[in-house]
């Protein structure tokens, strides 16, 4: 309500010009509407945030309840037994667990050094104008759907390895006692090594992008001081950047590991799906996720389905621990840098 013609506001107030009844009602109505909207919006957003927690809780609960029949039937022997026989309904998860661990280990052994070297290139060596395009190109590797890695791995990469790398490895390590077991057997092309190599490419972008972020957060003064002492690029990275960012790099590695453990489609194509534990990395094997993907829709019988869901539960628990550790480490370095 505009004050009546030119009078000072105080005078108007003191005169106590009666406010009309409808105006009061109007004002109360608007204010109530605002308050209700605000409270409602607050509650809705809060509910959505809690919804995220419920999803996680639902995943854990539903997996647990689905896995219960198998866990009750086999108990602890589920994770220590190797046999996996749908006909006699005897299930043990040791072979898929072993395959998951081995393929992830191969992937990390290759992706970590490769990722750190790429990060070194991107943060120290690469000319400024090239950093963005190359960085994006590396990150695009993470954008390619995993099924594409699978089809490419099966039709292009596995035959290539069968012709070149695998015979070379067998010849090279054949005479050496222990390593000859690790690289034994005919070169199938598909197998745990192939799966590990493809996983390495897939997790590479995660390691690179996290370590790039933390490398770039190193205070320039520290690096400049080291360069000023005459350190070489390698020495600066090895003795200044890496110690400073160690926690963050480990966090990035764990993040990559979490991906490698749970990766499904790419592995399913090239692992060979054999339920056995073989000392040779060239032999076909299976992983937890590949087993589920391959057998779930064909699983007949409640116990079979339940055993597969129990596999999923194991996978989820393992990745949950790895990812939680990764987040914790990354949070720590974030606090220190920020």
């Amino acid at each position: 309500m505009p004050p009546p013609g030119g009078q000072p506001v105080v005078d108007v107030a003191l005169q106590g010009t009666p406010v009309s009844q409808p105006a009061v009602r109007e004002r109360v109505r608007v204010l109530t509407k605002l308050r209700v909207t605000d409270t409602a919006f607050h509650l809705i957003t809060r509910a959505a945030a809690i919804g995220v927690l419920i999803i996680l809780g639902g995943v854990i609960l539903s997996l647990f309840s689905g896995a219960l029949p198998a866990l009750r039937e086999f108990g602890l022997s589920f994770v220590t037994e190797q046999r996996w026989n749908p006909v006699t309904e005897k299930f043990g998860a040791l072979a898929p667990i072993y395959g998951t661990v081995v393929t992830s280990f191969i992937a990390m052994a290759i992706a970590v050094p490769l990722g750190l070297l790429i990060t070194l290139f991107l943060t120290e060596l690469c000319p400024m104008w090239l950093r963005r395009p190359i960085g994006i190109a590396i990150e695009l590797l993470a954008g390619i759907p995993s099924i594409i890695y699978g089809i490419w791995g099966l039709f292009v990469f596995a035959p290539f390895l069968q012709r070149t790398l695998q015979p070379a490895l067998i010849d090279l390590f054949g005479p050496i006692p222990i390593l000859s077991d690790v690289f034994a057997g005919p070169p199938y092309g598909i197998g745990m090594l192939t799966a590990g190599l493809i996983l390495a490419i897939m997790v590479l972008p995660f390691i690179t992008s996290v370590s790039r972020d933390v490398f770039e957060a190193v205070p320039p003064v520290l690096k400049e001081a080291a360069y000023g002492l005459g350190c070489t690029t390698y020495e600066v990275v090895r003795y200044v950047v890496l110690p400073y960012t160690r926690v963050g790099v480990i966090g990035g590695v764990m993040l990559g590991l979490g991906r490698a453990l749970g990766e499904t489609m790419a592995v399913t194509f090239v692992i060979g799906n054999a339920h056995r534990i073989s000392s040779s990395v060239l032999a076909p094997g299976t992983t937890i996720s590949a087993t589920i993907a391959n057998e779930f829709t064909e699983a007949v019988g409640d116990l079979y389905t339940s055993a597969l869901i129990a596999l999923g539960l194991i996978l989820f628990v393992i990745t949950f621990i790895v990812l939680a550790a990764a987040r914790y480490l990354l949070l720590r370095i974030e606090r220190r840098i920020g």
Partner: protein
Amino acid sequence: MTDTTQRRGLPDQPGRVRTPMGLYQRRHLRNQIVIGLSFGATGIGLGWLAVILGTLLFEGVSGLSLKVFTETTPPPGADGGLLNPIVGSLIMTVLAIFIGTPIGILAGTYMAEYGRFSRLTQVVRFINDILLSAPSIVVGLFIYEVMVAPMGHFSGIAGAVALAVLVIPVVVRTTEDMLSLVPKELREAASALGMPLAYVIGKVSYRAARAGIITGILLAVARISGETAPLLFTALNHQFFADFPYLNAPMASLPVVIFQFALSPYHEWQSLAWTGALIITMTVLALSITARALASSRKVA
């Protein structure tokens, strides 16, 4: 070793070093080797991307024709296209975005605006980051347990819900990040005018963060459009168009059809799988490049 030699190898202690020149050369050599390796590693990374994309183009383009988009998937040994999986993928992706995005944006809003420093936000952020990289096959099992098993059959709607579960963490994360970047002075100015918080968020924060939030949605689309594992036991597959009502029946999707066709012994199916792979990859890459461009234009402005 280098540690001590470097520290002690000063000119006034020449005895500790074999020869000053030797140390110098050794350090130089090591540096050269590492630099060489790092160029090599980058070359490997880029080369790998090029090889994969090159293979896809080489194998996929030959099968690319109008028929791919107008005919349904063929029986073994016959000609056909990818119409029903493409349509199925589109339907499920759109549905998943419609289900997942509002929840994600609202949750992200709570974390950045109402409860920025609350305990709930910290917990949700932690859990959300874990869901972000949790294995997608586990999500498939989850939806199988809560939707497919009770309903008694596979369905397109279960597939869409599974994808929505994957959409939520991506959108939550980007929404929270983008809203946190909105300068607090903007909010203070609006609050000083007497706006309740809900209106400040709607009329100020959302507008300022719009480009970022859209980027998040695009990234989410890119993520789910290539997902296979969660669809395997939710939407399954369907040789033809699903019977009406579509959503309540098994539904074909591009990734699952690629999976099935690529592992089949039939040449026609394999070549269709390559074509489908090319379509998916190009879509996903285009989406993520657009998202990046959007995000960077916002940073510059």
